[in-house]
């Protein structure tokens, strides 16, 4: 078993045939198919990396639907202008209800712990009161796309998770064991989000997430 994606596929294979067929028909919509890379249009301002926006929503009925089945690739972009073209047409995260996530990752990196860009990595987590999520998310992604973290190619992507009583921001990086880099990311996050000094921030390695199969439990705490 290489990763969770394969593991879940195997688990699902025992289910009724109808589901299987439906999945095959939807293959063209598979979030993991290769699409042509976006390019900046004439006169547009290129980003350092191409990015992809993903959306996931926990399915209501069928609780066995796996993480990757709920994950949809919304669009990709290569320039600042193309980013605005997508972002300004997407609902604000805080206006969503239910168990939803927006993921904004570099093109080629799947928003999964097991991806080769992520498997030695981890993420900073800020769990926010309801009412602050949309603005903080915007500040976070503008800084990420604009290369304001200044940690080379360490950043993998950002996630906002809408939950019942909180909105959770996460910023994923490649190398969890590199403390100089993770500290720099934490300090930059505090500034760009304008977080009060007493804000609790948590760090969790994806390896630990795989072990306890949880994104936000058993984290390491950082307070000033």
């Amino acid at each position, binding site marked *: 078993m290489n990763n969770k994606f394969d593991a879940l596929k195997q688990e699902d294979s025992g289910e009724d045939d109808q589901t299987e067929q439906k999945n095959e028909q939807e293959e063209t919509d598979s979030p993991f198919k290769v699409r042509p890379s976006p390019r900046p249009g004439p006169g547009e*301002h*290129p*980003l*350092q990396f191409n990015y992809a926006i993903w*959306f996931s*929503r926990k399915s209501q009925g069928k609780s066995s639907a796996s993480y990757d089945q709920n994950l*949809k690739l*919304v*669009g990709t972009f290569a320039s*600042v*202008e193309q980013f*605005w*073209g*997508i972002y*300004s*047409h*997407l*609902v*604000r995260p805080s206006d*969503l209800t239910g168990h939803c996530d927006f993921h904004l990752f570099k093109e080629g990196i799947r928003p999964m712990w097991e991806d080769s860009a992520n498997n030695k990595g981890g993420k900073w987590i*800020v*769990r*926010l*009161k*309801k*009412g*602050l999520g*949309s*603005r903080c998310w*915007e*500040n976070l992604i*503008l800084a990420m*796309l*604009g*290369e*304001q973290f*200044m940690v*080379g190619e*360490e950043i993998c992507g950002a996630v906002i998770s809408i939950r019942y*009583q*909180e*909105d*959770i921001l996460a910023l994923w990086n490649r190398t969890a064991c590199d403390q*100089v*880099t993770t*500290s*720099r990311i934490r*300090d*930059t996050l*505090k*500034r*760009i989000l*304008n*977080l*009060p*000094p*007493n*804000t*609790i921030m948590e760090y969790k390695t994806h390896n630990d997430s795989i072990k306890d199969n949880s994104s936000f439990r058993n984290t390491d705490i950082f*307070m000033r």
Partner: protein
Amino acid sequence: GTPPPSPGIIGKYKLADYRYGKEEMLALNNPNHTEPLEEIKKFTYIYVEKPQEPITMQSLSEEEQRLMSQSVNSTAVLRMFGRGG
């Protein structure tokens, strides 16, 4: 406040070729030229027809100011770490 950027980190990492501060990112948003890509229209649950201006262009609401002046953390995380709530 937060300490200044960790010294020496710039030596560790090469600066990116394409960098944009927040104001530059905002300045490059032209609402008249944000024709939505066809591919996102099918995501009816999250697609918004009329382009929205960045949230940053709106000043903090009273509610946001109140929240920012206290702890921004969710009650769940405050409780978990023994900070009441």
